[in-house]
């Protein structure tokens, strides 16, 4: 079995449109959550994590017309990742044979919703002809493969909130076991449409906007938390066998050392501590690590009433008494819940912690819930020396759980 490393990172998120800006925002405890503009008058104020990026900087009007926003965001992240991975040496193999492993929860929903709205409100016969190819869940992976020129497998994982963590984990396994040498792996989501937000509101899981300070609406582990905040974005990393990276003298940013994927098989939405525990243990076993080796955990931490307590309990089951000494934070407090892309966004957050030597905070945590009694790195980032191993949790509706572990590269290459 081969070692798998990370040689490139791309991200476009509500708290930064590239890796440097994203990391700086994590370190500053900066929120990217704000009130949404242009909402129907019949709706009460809404908050979300928005990517405030002028896409016309990157694409022609014709391209913007042909691709859903989810694919446009994925392409930006993919190009950043390849550029940061010493792209000149990627042009030949390994990139030619690279796989594209992406996760998305709901794909091109904006195109689908817009098309259906026009379709049913008009004569019910006419519909935008590109609706199918814009809305299909594998459109982002297809466009990334075309843009970068990857001829390996192109796979799309749709496991709700764990989609992109699963995508990264499955790409890691494919490299580890020799099926491919290189992959672009991560996810994209662009679901801030009126209908989608209505549906989430109906489920009573969204945070009640903090109208005094909308940017503080997501309050993981806090006594006054009210739910999750939807967000959009994309994060894609270049994964590569260590041999491949060495052959082309690529920068090794970190190792991907462990992946666990388990299913609760208990309830379609209710989180389950035993399932989460099994997932974290599977990742540790895969990495050959003990719980005490982990120096930072990026929690799933959605800020729902049930989820934060269940995850806290699962962390205690896995880490025992050491749980209280483990820094655990929910960066969703800053970037929101990026759904199918959130696993990748948060794995990148964990990488930022390890590479840039800081613990990202859980902001908006004035008064912790007594049932949430771990060290959540409340409100401000903390400097830290030499994190060796970091973990990122993703727990999804459907009970599909994933956990990723990254480790510091043993020596700079």
């Amino acid at each position, binding site marked *: 079995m081969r070692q798998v490393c990370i040689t490139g990172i791309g991200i476009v998120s509500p708290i930064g449109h590239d890796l440097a800006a994203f990391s700086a925002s994590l370190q500053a405890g900066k929120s990217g959550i704000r009130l949404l503009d242009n909402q129907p008058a019949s709706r009460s104020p809404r908050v979300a994590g928005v990517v405030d990026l002028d896409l016309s900087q990157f694409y*022609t*009007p*014709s391209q913007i*017309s*042909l691709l859903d926003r989810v694919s446009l965001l994925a392409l930006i992240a993919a190009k950043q990742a390849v550029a940061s991975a010493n792209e000149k040496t990627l042009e030949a193999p390994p990139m030619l044979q690279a796989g594209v492993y992406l996760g998305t929860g709901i794909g091109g929903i904006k195109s689908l919703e817009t098309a259906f709205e026009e379709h049913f409100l*008009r*004569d019910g016969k*006419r519909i*935008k*002809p*590109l609706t199918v*190819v814009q809305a299909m869940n594998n459109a982002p992976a297809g466009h990334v493969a075309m843009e970068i020129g990857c001829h390996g497998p192109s796979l799309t994982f749709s496991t709700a909130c764990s989609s992109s963590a699963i995508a990264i984990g499955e790409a890691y396994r494919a490299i580890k076991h020799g099926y491919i040498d290189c992959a672009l792996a991560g996810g994209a989501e662009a679901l801030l449409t009126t209908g989608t937000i209505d549906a989430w509101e109906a489920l009573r899981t969204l945070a009640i906007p903090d109208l005094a300070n909308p940017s503080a609406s997501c309050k993981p582990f806090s006594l006054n938390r009210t739910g999750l905040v939807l967000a959009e974005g994309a994060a894609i990393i270049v994964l590569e066998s260590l041999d491949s990276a060495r052959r082309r003298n690529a920068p090794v940013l970190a190792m991907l050392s462990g992946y666990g994927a388990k299913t609760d098989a208990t309830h379609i939405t209710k989180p389950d501590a035993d399932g989460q525990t099994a997932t974290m243990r599977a990742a540790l076993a895969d990495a050959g690590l003990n719980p005490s080796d982990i120096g930072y955990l990026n929690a799933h931490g959605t800020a729902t009433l049930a989820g934060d307590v269940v995850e806290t309990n699962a962390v205690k089951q896995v880490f025992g008494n050491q749980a209280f000494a483990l820094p655990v934070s929910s960066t969703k407090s800053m970037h929101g819940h990026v759904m199918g892309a959130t696993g990748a966004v948060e794995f990148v957050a964990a990488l930022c912690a390890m590479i840039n030597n800081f613990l990202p905070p859980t902001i908006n945590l004035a008064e912790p819930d007594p049932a949430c009694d771990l060290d959540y790195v409340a409100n401000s980032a903390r400097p830290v020396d030499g994190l060796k191993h970091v973990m990122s949790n993703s727990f999804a509706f459907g009970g599909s759980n994933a956990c990723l572990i990254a480790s510091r590269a043993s020596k700079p290459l």
Partner: protein
Amino acid sequence: MSSSNSPEVLQQKLKEMIAEEFSISIDKLTPEATVESLGIDSLGLIDFMFKVEDELGVDMPDSRTPLLTLADVYAEIAKATPRAVKG
């Protein structure tokens, strides 16, 4: 097509729309120019025809005729009928 639009007026309007949609110089939009040579792919053309329907307020027939040149595109659009207004 509406009788108020002569073929020349329609073609000029379509040329302007194509030039803007695909960022192509209007000088290159001769009737014999192939869609492929102008860098317009099949999906882009389908999307454009949909926009033409909206812009001109017409419905195009559900045709499978291959549209290889701009002359083919103009001819196809000329078959469009004014959109029925829902009562």
